[in-house]
């Protein structure tokens, strides 16, 4: 039987184009197999990526920090519920610094006597504007936008902004 099949295959496919019917179906199966594999892979990837970590596009989550005048110049107030430090610079500008160290994500703490944020994990240090003073951290602390309305300081804790360096344009000033 198999001998007969082999012969018939040979005689069916003479000439340059030597793709037999069997060969064709073999290739078709393989192609279909690869296609099914890719589809499954795509489905699994989509399954994992679409559900988790979705940016819901929720409206701003404003947290009211207090009246502008209650924060002295060059002072840092901790808001552990919102996981940020509200830091008022020497020139009166506000910034809400995330307490996550940019090296490996530990919580930094404000050491007033040293005038810097220090990370307990690998001793990275940041100044009052969030700028790096001591490695291994390479990026300035991330921050949340600050809005000042009717003399009240509000922090949008729904939008975390990452940055490399700190700059004046990231500060908010009372009008």
């Amino acid at each position: 039987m198999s001998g007969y099949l082999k012969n018939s295959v040979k005689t069916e496919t003479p000439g340059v184009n030597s793709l037999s019917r069997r060969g064709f179906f073999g290739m078709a199966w393989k192609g279909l197999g690869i296609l099914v594999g890719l589809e499954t892979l795509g489905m699994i990837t989509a399954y994992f990526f679409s559900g988790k970590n979705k940016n819901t596009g929720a409206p701003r989550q404003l947290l009211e920090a207090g009246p502008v005048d209650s924060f002295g110049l060059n002072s840092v107030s901790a808001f552990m519920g919102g996981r940020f430090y509200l830091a008022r610079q020497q020139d009166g500008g506000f910034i809400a610094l995330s307490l996550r160290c940019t090296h490996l994500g530990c919580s930094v703490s404000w050491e007033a006597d040293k005038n810097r944020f220090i990370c307990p994990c690998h001793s990275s240090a940041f100044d009052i504007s969030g700028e790096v003073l001591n490695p291994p951290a390479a990026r300035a602390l991330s921050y949340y936008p600050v809005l000042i309305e009717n003399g009240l300081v509000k922090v949008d804790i729904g939008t975390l902004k990452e940055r490399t360096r700190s700059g004046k344009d990231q500060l908010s000033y009372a009008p």
Partner: protein
Amino acid sequence: MRSIFLHLHPVKVSESALKLDRTFGLGGMAAILIVIQIFTGIMLRFYYVPSPASAYDSIVYLKEHVLFGPFIRNIHYWSGVFLLLIAFLHFLRVFFTGAYRGVRKINWLFGLFLLLLIVFSNFTGYLLPWDQLAYWAITVSTNIIGYLPLGGTALHEMIVGGKELNAGTLQNFFTFHTALFPLLLLTLVIYHFWRVRKAGGVFLPQKSEKDEMVPVMPNLVFREFIVALLLLAVLFTSAALFDAPLLEKANPAYSMNPTKAPWYFAGVQELLMHFHPFFAAFLIPLAVIIFLAWIPFMKFGQEHNGHWFISDLGKQSSTVTALFAVLVTLSGILFNAWVVNFEILIPGIPAIISNGIIPLIILTVFMMGFYLFYLKKLALTKAEFVQAVFVFIIAAFIVLTLTGIFFRGKDMELSFPWKI
């Protein structure tokens, strides 16, 4: 029952395969520990609740209100620790007796994969208590993923399910730890054993004529039974005497000081103290894994004879290389911590050069020196040379790991164990 157990074995086995110093029974021990992990893991799941609000409380409940609750948890904890150590020793044994050649090539790869699987099973389990130790150890470890080139940030956010640990992370880790990894582990371990059987059992030095085949029952089965009993005795004693750690409930606002990665990643974390994350967490581990996977596919002039460390020269070069590796790693750590920190010394250039390329070049110079002035003069065979490289990597890894576990105190500064 008896026939099932006997069915797992061949009828007869070579007498020299029974000698304790051939395998030390390490592979068998690892298999027993995996079975214990599955049993105790299922038992723990009857009480554990995988949500940030209840996880910690469910373990406190287990400890305080469940008969044998702490004991079962302690067994699961210690069995996890032992499994890692024994799987690592098994890996060393297989390498140093050359049991990775020829038909065993593929099984070496499966073995490496199983070792990684055991590491990541342990890692995903580490988070589940949701206490301060778990929360911060997993925070620093997962943040390392964010430094991987090409999509490291996306991968980090996918595994963690967000920018920082949350309910999704716990759900992910719980599923990995209690479903995906055990399933893979069990399937692959069975396959791993089957391939050993297909390859003709334990790898032996060239057969001598005296080597007789003896019946498995009782010669091998009784030996296995003794090893299993001893292992269980040590495991249960540890579980009865030493409690698995449980600190206060996780508090995302306050980091532990010091925050350490799980102990088996202490080596990588120690490397991170000295190298830019791209090198410490990516390039160096990747190079090591590629080297290990490549070992059985190298073209060796002569076959490994199956003797420990190949030859007397192999033994000698391994010992000296291990000493050199310990010396170079220790002095590197101390030099970088006390004498020169390139990132602070040369602040103008990118950290990847000052803290990556420069120290790597210095290390390479030392290793080249060692090669030129010692290894080269011994006229080692290729197999002996590869063995020396392997020894260097393992010894350096062990020194880094021990330093990270025992010699890093407050603020991750170097200190002595009794001061931590």
